[in-house]
């Protein structure tokens, strides 16, 4: 299973599902009844064809470097693990953004990501950067640019 094969299959799937749901959209009650359907239906068909073409091209190709162009499953590499942790941290950040307010949530999030890439060395730098960034951005946005960010609970600043 090469990356191209996966891309082709995913594209075929998306194209078919998208085209099919476009075709089954409710007809419009006013205006042109199928005006909103023709264009997405074309896109769905096109995507399906492109996906199939890539699958066929991949089946026909006899490139010897298939292993190199295939994803490796199993244990995550260090890089993969770090990405997974960073994404998990990002999801937590999204969930905590409003309950904790911008400043606290951002200090926690940046602190986590900085700690992730810097490790136990220079923890002081991690803390200073995270706090300075969060407070700085908060001041910049809410005071200078007038964009309201979620405020801190209890203290309400």
């Amino acid at each position: 299973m090469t990356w191209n094969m996966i891309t082709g299959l995913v594209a075929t799937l998306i194209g078919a599902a998208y085209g099919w749901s476009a075709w089954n959209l409710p007809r419009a009650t006013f205006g042109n009844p199928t005006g909103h359907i023709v264009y997405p239906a074309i896109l769905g068909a096109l995507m399906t064809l492109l996906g199939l073409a890539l699958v066929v091209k991949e089946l026909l190709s006899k490139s010897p470097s298939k292993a190199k162009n295939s994803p490796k499953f199993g244990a995550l590499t260090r890089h993969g693990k770090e990405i997974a942790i960073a994404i998990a941290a990002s999801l937590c950040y999204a969930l905590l953004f409003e309950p904790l307010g911008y400043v606290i949530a951002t200090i926690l999030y940046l602190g986590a990501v900085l700690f992730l890439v810097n490790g136990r060395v220079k923890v002081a730098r991690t803390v200073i950067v995270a706090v300075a960034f969060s407070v700085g951005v908060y001041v910049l946005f809410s005071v200078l640019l007038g964009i309201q960010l979620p405020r801190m609970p209890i203290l309400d600043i």
Partner: protein
Amino acid sequence: MNEVFSQLFLGFQVALTPINIMWTTLGGVLGTIIGMLPGLGPATGVAVLLPLTFKMGPVGAMITMAGVYYGAMFGGSRASILLNTPGDGAAIATCFDGYPMTQKGRAEAALAMSAVASFIGGMIANVAMVFVAVPVAKFSLKFGPAEYTLLMLFALAATAAMSKEKILQGFIGMVFGLMISTIGLDGLTGVNRFTFNILELMGGIDFLIIIIGIYALGEVFKSFKSVHDPSYKMQTKFGKITFTKEDWKRSWPAILRSTPLGFFIGALPGAGGTMAALMAYNNEKNLSKHPEEFGKGAIEGLAAPEAANNASSVGALIPMMTLGIPGSGTTAVMLGALLMLGLQPGPLLFTKQPEVAWGMIASMFIGNFILLIVNMPMASILVRVLSVPAKVLYPLILGLAFIGTYAITNSVVDFFILIAFGLIGIFLDKAKIPTAPLILGGIVGSTMETSFRQALMLSDGSPKIFYGSTVTIVLIGLTIFSIAWPFVAGAIKSAKRARKA
């Protein structure tokens, strides 16, 4: 002709106000810094700095974003020369001779020459833009919806077909972008499309969030891999940043040849700064009397791509400003930002809001002077940014991505879309699907669908409107040509090789 000068004069009146000079400087310097950082280019720069432009008003926003764009072209070469790592794609060709110059102890000359070549390339291209922009805009006023649909299709196809090996992947990305733009409530019929009954999707997905997801989150996640590399060993002490008379004598013809080339390539959809710079480099190598010096520190091999990529960044603004159709990832981001500010780039921009269009053009003249100063006498201060560890910088870009998203929509729901597209960005990279066609498709998608449907309404549903006039046939021809060209060129090349053998 007088009209052009009076408009340009108006533009300078706008651009020379203290606040706009400040935005020009800010945009240019931030662009230079972002351009310097390996992995981050002008598209990321514009996307991340977007929230800063909200309160500036259209003129300030436009000036700042343009500054980021050409500033990144100045900055990209710094890392190429000092670290042999291009700061952005357009600076790849600058590594070829820039880094050997540093190894020979001529970093000062390389830094100075790249700044001067960038300056000249940018300035000449600006002059060209002054004269080209209005005629193009006037010509495109004659375009109807069918012509517009085809013009967008041409821009998209040319971008997707940029690489012969990845042509299918390019088109898959393009159609995916177009699909995303159809999500939401359809304005003409009131039908919800592809919303899966999720209330938040009814308004559609804001494409700027997708851009930030792919260009900021995705890029940072990807660079986690390189973040642990032992920090670069970089020259930090410099002599006077200048070059010799001999250097100048070798470089100026290369600069003058590469500028029009870069400008033209930049204005074409699809091809961008990277291609312009590589073509300029190869062109100089072929013309040179000592091609053997190329790759070993020939200064004209550094000057040519630097002039070309700056000229191409100006050229790329032309289709975006005059037609409302971006030809590259960065201009697509700019277009998205302008639409959000309530501006409609296109032919009418020049007549309805001349202060925006001409203010930006005039600011680019001023910006080039500012950046010449920033990148020559002050270069040794500025390149210290490169010694700030990536381990600190890249997490902060994640922080900026989230705050940017929140500033655009004021909704935490979009954070999840942002994260999802960060992941999609990683997948696109692994699957070698180019991002530019996807972004372009997403940005022009809804305009394209509207034009498509308007055309069909005008013709009572007959598709003949898409091939009935000369302009449409020319556009169809161009589209087919842009898809077929990579294959034809490949065939010609192998035929030539066969004959030689």
